[in-house]
């Protein structure tokens, strides 16, 4: 069985995570689209912490017999991997957009200076 203390600490940590994410959104320091995965992480961990029978059942399915809270770690790790992978795709997109913008600036500046020279 999952020790009660683990469930309580897990629940508190999940609630803190959700609250911090919500506060970051409220303060416009985090965009909703990048917060959704974090909120999902918090909610799933909260559910698994509070719903003790559920955690034990899932642990049973996965063959984790000696220490059910290990499933909490596994789920948390999975979500963190998802968030990081998502960010890698976001960074890649930003990089491409940055390069495109830099190229456009270089092309436009040259064009502007050519038009200026012609106008003089």
């Amino acid at each position, binding site marked *: 069985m999952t020790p009660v203390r683990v469930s309580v600490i897990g629940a508190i940590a999940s609630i803190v995570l959700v609250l911090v994410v919500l506060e970051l959104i409220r303060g416009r320091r985090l965009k909703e689209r990048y917060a959704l995965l974090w909120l999902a992480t918090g909610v799933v961990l909260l559910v698994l912490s509070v719903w003790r029978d559920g955690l034990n059942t899932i642990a049973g399915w996965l063959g984790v017999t000696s220490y059910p809270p290990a499933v909490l770690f596994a789920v948390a790790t999975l979500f963190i991997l998802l968030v990081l992978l998502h960010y890698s795709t976001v960074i890649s997109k930003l990089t491409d957009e940055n390069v495109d913008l*830099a*190229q456009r600036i270089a*092309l436009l500046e040259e064009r502007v200076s050519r038009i200026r020279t012609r106008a003089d």
Partner: protein
Amino acid sequence: MTGLPTGSTKRLVAIVPAWNESGAIGEVVDEIRDYDPAVDVVVIDDASTDDTAEVAELRGATVLRLPFNIGIGGAVQTGFRFALDEGYDAAVRLDGDGQHAASEIPKLLGPIEAGEADLVIGSRFVDPGGTYRPPFARRIGIGVFARLVSLLGGQRVTDTTSGFVALDRAGIELFAAEFPHDYPEVEATLVALRSGLRVTQVQVDMRERTTGSSSITFVRSLYYIVKVMLSLLVASLRRYPRLQGARQ
């Protein structure tokens, strides 16, 4: 973004990427203009910290100034986008360090003017009697990449790391839209083959660098090899729109 053609006679543009090449860029520009004054020389300054842009401009080149360093592939692509916007019929790409001799440009342009190719690669290894003998490790790397690209692209190429290439309008259009951003040459060759461009290669000699050092240091070579291998693998799984050669 399509620009008006700059004039009816200026159909060839020389694209020269440069990063901190103030020691060599002046001669590179002079050499191209001496070879053929009708060629427009475009230097892409990849946010140099020296006066590369000023030197190139003083020698009569058009300079595209990138606001920050985006790497060789992105810089070269800026040149292709310029060529596309300004309506050039053909482009030749040379490095800004002086290793590509302007006197070799006619060899590269030959197959394009004859309407036989969309992309001409200046290869150091077509002719076994070529003078260029790279260090052992680099020779192995060049050979492996060439075989891999030949295999995946379905056509034998001998020098996929060459930055000395010429393109017709179809080639300019492809590379303006699709060009890898770092260590671009190998993957670009495969992209061209898979897009259906007519690719051919001609023997050219290249000079030793006059100043500066190759951007590929020993420490970076491992990243280089892994990155290029991954790009090739992914590029061969990706679908590219089949282009028709300009004169097919």
